[in-house]
């Protein structure tokens, strides 16, 4: 049971929520897919830097956020999209909803990390990785895999998990990287060779790593973030970047053209390229596209090379976005279960 005070407080908040509108002046509604921990740090700093703007941040995973933004398209609720997969952002239906704004300081980013029409820019990103469970690897007497080709070995039968590209952005990230770095023909052949060893194609991008870390499977093709976070927690995992380059994804920011608080939204985007923000990226992110940012401690601890460029696949995001429908369809035809 509760005190009358809290009842009335809830009633008041229900009433207030009853009139929920796109945030008015002094308030910003921000949709993001950034990870919780970094999000908490960034938001706290941004709120301090912009004391007159109330930041209301809604966090959902990349896929769910996309579904929500598109469902709300007729009457968008958000003012800003922050830290969302650029492959998703480049969906024409999303780009249509975005407004152009050249944030202060965005010019330091290389061209491939920003939209030519300034509808988005991506100062940060995340990358894929193999999560390898060391005890299970040992138990099975398997060698540490270092490439996609290694995963095709007999001993990995039913020991590998990866996300289904049709359900998960992470899945597409990996498939796209293999295809782009090896070329379509060799790439499909490589995926074909690994397919018999795949125990499951999961619908979630982090699930393969989470399954591998508790020893359900030996290798989870997943995200570097999840791998690093798991290693930090103490799971006996090794994070492996496959030779030939691992897939990665950019996390883009942009303003929805429907916002009625463009001024504050622009101030916020400016902040995301501020020195303060960039310094924070350095603390949390393995992948920062702003030139000259040092490696984060966590990344070093997890065994990430200092020059991240050496492990990344050469990904053309424009091509990747354009071919994704075709690629996913073909994948489905070849590997759909």
């Amino acid at each position, binding site marked *: 049971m509760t005190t009358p005070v809290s009842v009335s407080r809830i009633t008041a908040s229900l009433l207030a929520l009853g009139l929920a509108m796109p945030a008015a002046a002094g308030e910003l509604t921000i949709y993001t897919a950034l990870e919780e921990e970094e999000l908490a740090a960034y938001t706290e700093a941004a709120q301090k830097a912009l004391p007159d703007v109330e930041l209301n941040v809604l966090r959902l995973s990349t896929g769910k956020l996309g579904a929500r933004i598109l469902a709300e398209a007729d009457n968008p609720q958000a003012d800003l999209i922050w830290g969302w997969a650029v492959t998703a952002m480049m969906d024409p239906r999303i780009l249509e909803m975005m407004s152009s704004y050249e944030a202060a300081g965005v010019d330091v980013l290389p061209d491939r990390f920003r939209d030519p029409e300034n509808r988005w820019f991506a100062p940060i990103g995340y990358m894929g990785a193999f999560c390898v469970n060391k005890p299970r690897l040992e138990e099975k007497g398997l060698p540490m895999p270092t490439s996609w080709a290694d995963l095709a070995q007999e001993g990995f039968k039913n020991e590998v998990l990866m996300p289904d590209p049709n359900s998960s952005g992470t899945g597409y990230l990996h498939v796209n990287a293999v295809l782009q770095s090896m070329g379509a023909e060799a790439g499909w052949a490589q995926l074909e060779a690994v397919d018999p060893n795949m125990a499951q194609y999961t619908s979630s991008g982090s699930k393969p790593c989470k399954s591998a870390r508790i020893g*359900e499977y030996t290798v989870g093709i997943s995200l570097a973030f999840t791998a690093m976070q798991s290693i930090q927690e103490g799971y006996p995992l090794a994070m492996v970047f496959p030779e030939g380059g691992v897939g990665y994804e950019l996390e883009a920011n942009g303003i929805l053209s429907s916002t009625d608080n463009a001024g504050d939204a622009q101030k916020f985007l400016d902040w995301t390229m501020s020195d303060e923000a960039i310094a924070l990226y350095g603390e949390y992110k393995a992948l920062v596209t702003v030139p000259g940012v040092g490696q984060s401690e966590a990344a070093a601890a997890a065994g990430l090379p200092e020059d991240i460029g050496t492990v990344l696949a050469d990904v053309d995001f424009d091509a990747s976005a354009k071919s994704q429908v075709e690629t996913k369809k073909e994948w489905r035809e070849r590997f759909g279960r």
Partner: protein
Amino acid sequence: MTDKTLPRGTSGAPPARFDGDKALALVCVGVPLIGLVLFFLYPMAIVFLRSITTVDGEYGLSNYAEVLGSSGFWRATRHSMIMGGATTLLSVVLGFIIAHGLYRCAFRGKRLIRAVIVLPLLAPSLVQALGLIFLLGRNGVVNQLFGVEMEIYGFWGLLIANTLYALPQAVMIIGAALVLLDARTYEAAEVMGASPMRQFRDLTLPAARFGILNAAFVVFIITITDFGNAAVIGGDYSVLATEIYSQVIGQRNFNMGAVVGIMLLLPTVAAYYIERRAMRLQGRHPVNAQRFVPRFTPARDLPMAGLNLLICLAVLSVIAIVFYASFVRLWPYNMSLTLKHYDITLAGGYSSLWITIWISLAAAAGGTFLVFLLAVGLRRAPAMLAQPLQVLAAMPAAVPGMVLGLAYILTFNSTATPLYLLYGTAALIGIVNFYHYHTQAFLTVMTGFRQLPSALEEAAGSLGAGLGRVAVNIIAPFVAPMLISVFFFLFMRSMVTLSAVVFLTTPDLSVAAVTIMRLDDAGLTSQAAAFSCCVMAVVAAALLGMKAILAYLGRNAGTGSDG
């Protein structure tokens, strides 16, 4: 046959000339009907429109053609039907064993069985998934103990997970049919020399048929619409719900997802139709107030108690292992105990818990009231209105939560109607929770209503009681056990349901299930488990509190209610 069965059997409906009562009956049907139309039919109509909206924004059937032409869809359909059938069979058999044990057998510890059996309802889906993996996974306790490597990912794991989730709902509905069975018919059969087996076959089974069929219907459709279990433990066993997820979330193609969502309604309508046909063969079961008090019969009760215990142990172990794991430092590599996972700061911490309780209480109270109104109204409504209304009321479970949630965005995030005022409110979350579980609530109450002898209403009517009084003084006390279980069911599900709600939360308004999802998304599975345990503890405490209040009220009123 007495001469009254003929007229009653063919007409059933009492006279329509009630003046003030007529208005009240209209309200009884009207208010829930408006609710169903606004919060189910209207959003689903928009889903339907989306399903026939082609890529170039025009209306046409090309989406359907594409879906029907893909082999993946037919594979998923086949899997869904097989899984639905297998889960239904297993859940109804186990559910019947438990319900029969609870209401028709004599052994101790029924309170405990009742408590254990509802656990999967009050457990967030993460708990069940983790529990099964920790227990039966490739690196799980069972495999470690026996040194085998059993593979649960796929059909069998999914079957177990779906059954765990469906079982309490099957027990709830079958129980509603068994609890009110008349003792006298059993005494009569006993005297006529019918063996217990015969009594079971000739009396219990036929009388419980309505409940069994309703339970089978509910289990079937919640199984074919469930995504959570399929994603976690289904492995590569693709089902229709995973198809929808892949379309809607993976490919951001809601229109194609909508096609599958609409197609999911078909087997549901078919199942409902078959069920109704089967029901028609059964006349109304005459019942009076003689309660059945089972006497201890070893041949029946010992095996039944054993089976009940076994099922309960299985359910309990899944939940208990997660509870235990929430205190383990690093499952399964460092089994030392710690409280650190309960120190939750990310994803809003514990703040969402309290608002979730309020939303759930409101959804449960409002929902129970509406379903009761509807059931009362249906008794007075002409068959022409009552039949389509019954189908409508039984439909919502056929819609996967994800589709319902997105449909709510499409419907209520439009300034075209005043309903927009609801968007982003706690009220809408409560509403979506209720309508998501409308089918189960409705069918449970209807199962109870079927046992209500019309003579009671007629006697009260002849004494001068209007519909309002009949509903409050006669009907409500009679179906009170069902109303209470519906209230608890809605409360529990509202506390932990994620699928629809995830699309309706706002930056200021998050619920417990979303917090659990965010913690798990962040890789903090142990914290998510810890938070889940807190939710379960709060729900359990709330349930116990409410039961205590009910018992207290019951004692004060001195009524013979024994729910």
